[in-house]
């Protein structure tokens, strides 16, 4: 926020999203006064937590000129396999849960990287294939059933809170400990993208792959890294999701790729690659979370929710794409 206003760029993509969020918050608040409370902040951050991790990974992939629609499948795969193996072999260890899920995600991510980097298959088609493969595999393994008893050592985490605030109604609202994960990731990814050679490479590949290769960047290796690293994070996000939800469902996350991609694009990341920022992505996720969480509060019936979210996706992505086109067509000095 501070950085953007310092630039005095009040019409940037991020600021437009900020305006929309503020306007929407006041609209919801004026209809339902209970919206303005600490509880809402906690609920919203809890609801957007997993989606934010997905969106950050997706953003890095899109900046590099690719796209990933396989992350819900990879997350479902790693969360289900981890929890089921832990139950089977009585492994009651927090570190194992996260490490194992991360490694599974990394393996699938490497497959994506191999298909896209080595064999030059269009990213959308490659990841659609991976998605179907991974999802099919975990459905065959799980037979479509969900696991509801999570190992006790990790289950405890769902009840761990960072801090609690007494709400106006007398109860207590608490911030889950998992909020640390996306916050650390945001800072880390922001740092990598802005201040390391690797981040510059990712932007360069997304801007123009050939130019990047000629400039001496190892495109293949960078792509491997991008997909493997995001796969690792997605695996961790998957297992965090199952701990938060306190069950392991192989098909719960499926279908969330659309809204995550929309959130990333609304946040100003160009789908053609080369542009995007962590702050924008956070704002995009925040906007879509507020919309989908509070539609009932402002009196939109549940049957209209899919439509409303779809409409916001179409409008949001159109606005950002049009802005990108305008910049691309503007005369260059």
């Amino acid at each position, binding site marked *: 926020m501070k950085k953007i206003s310092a630039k005095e760029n009040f019409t940037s993509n991020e600021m437009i999203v900020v305006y929309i969020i503020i306007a929407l918050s006041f609209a919801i608040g004026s209809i339902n006064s209970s919206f303005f409370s600490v509880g809402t902040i906690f609920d919203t951050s809890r609801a957007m937590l997993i989606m934010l991790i997905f969106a950050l990974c997706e953003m890095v992939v899109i900046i590099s000129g690719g796209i990933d629609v396989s992350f819900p499948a990879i997350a479902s795969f790693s969360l289900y396999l981890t929890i089921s193996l832990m139950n089977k072999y009585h492994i009651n260890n927090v570190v194992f849960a996260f490490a194992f899920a991360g490694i599974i995600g990394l393996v699938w991510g490497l497959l994506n990287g191999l*298909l896209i980097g080595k064999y030059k298959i*269009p990213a959308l088609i490659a990841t659609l294939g991976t998605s*179907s493969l991974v999802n099919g595999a975990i459905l065959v393994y799980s037979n479509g059933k969900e696991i509801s008893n999570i190992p006790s050592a990790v289950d405890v985490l769902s009840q761990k809170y960072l801090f609690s605030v007494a709400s106006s109604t007398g109860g207590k609202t608490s911030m889950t400990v998992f909020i640390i994960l996306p916050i650390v990731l945001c800072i880390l990814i922001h740092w990598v993208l802005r201040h390391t050679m690797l981040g510059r490479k990712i932007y360069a590949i997304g801007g123009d792959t050939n130019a990047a290769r000629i400039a001496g960047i190892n495109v293949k290796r960078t792509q491997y890294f991008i997909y493997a690293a995001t796969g690792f994070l997605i695996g961790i996000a998957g297992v965090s999701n199952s701990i938060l939800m306190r069950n392991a469902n192989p098909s719960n996350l499926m279908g969330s790729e*659309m809204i995550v991609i929309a959130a990333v694009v609304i946040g100003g990341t160009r789908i053609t690659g080369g542009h995007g920022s962590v702050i924008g992505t956070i704002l995009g996720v925040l906007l879509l979370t507020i919309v989908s969480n509070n539609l009932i509060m402002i009196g939109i019936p549940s049957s209209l929710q899919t439509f409303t979210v779809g409409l916001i996706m179409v409008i949001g992505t159109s606005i950002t794409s049009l802005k990108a086109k305008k910049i691309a067509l503007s005369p260059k000095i």
Partner: protein
Amino acid sequence: MEKIISKIKAADKNELTLFSIAVAITIIMATISPSFLQGTNIRSMAFQFPEYGIMCYGMMICMISGGIDLSLVGIANLSGIVAAEIMLKMGSSNDSIFIAFIAAMITGAICGLFNGYLVGQLRIPAMLVTLSGGQLYTGLCVAITKGPALTGLSPAFQKIGNGLLFDFVPISLVIFIAVALIMDFILRYTIYGKQLGFMGTNHTASRYAGINNLNVTLKTYMLSGILAAVSGIVMISHYGSAKSDYGTSYTLLTLLIVVLGGVNTLGGKGKILGVSLSIIVLQLISSAFNILRFNSFVKTLVWGLLLIVIMVLRAILQSHNLKFWRRKSENKVS
């Protein structure tokens, strides 16, 4: 004999491969289980594939134009629901079936035009447009039906998806063949078909050649929407009801079929024959799984695997050919 051999040599490699895969599956399945070649199995296959087969042609023309259409299932469901609503409101008379059919086509065309406008005029990437467009159309479906399926369609209408023409050929198969022939004619013998191929090969060059890219894009997505609507009609008539989440697995399936059928994923190239053969191959595989009593989840896995393996094989073959030609030309120079 020589004529046949030269004809085979001249035929498209991809189509030949697909044809041999189809024959191989049929022979293997016929030896494993004799029920594979029985009339009931063949007839049930003929009833199953038209609904997604028609969609494949929509995906195909969009891919030839250099884009992609991920909203086909959404459009199909929306048109189906519009048709079902009209029929239910008008008391399922024969006139209402006709009106419903027209209304479904118009719905499909409008959805397609919307996609086409965003892709062609505003130059938003097709993948993004159709991805969020699909969500929008599915949302409209939910808004209209409020969730549950629309049932009670008239038996006369259900004949489209379940009836036989002359007690022998499924009506939906006849529709499918008609669509395939029309699309083949459009792609091969009309100006639009040529323009579509040019635009997909090189967008800028086609603009300088005097082709109205916007016009071609609009037509392409409209045609794709209309095809989705036709398949939506066949689908609701086959199931006897309309719902917002029918056929959700068809998005991946149509993409797989089109890629398998030899359509260039970057645009420009694609043949109706290849896609049609690939539809038949996929239906044979799916039917074989049903007879072998595999879990339906296995199908998802195998489809994904198939898509990846085909793309990788094609990439390897392509680089191999490239090296071969390079070596040949180097030899010539030296």
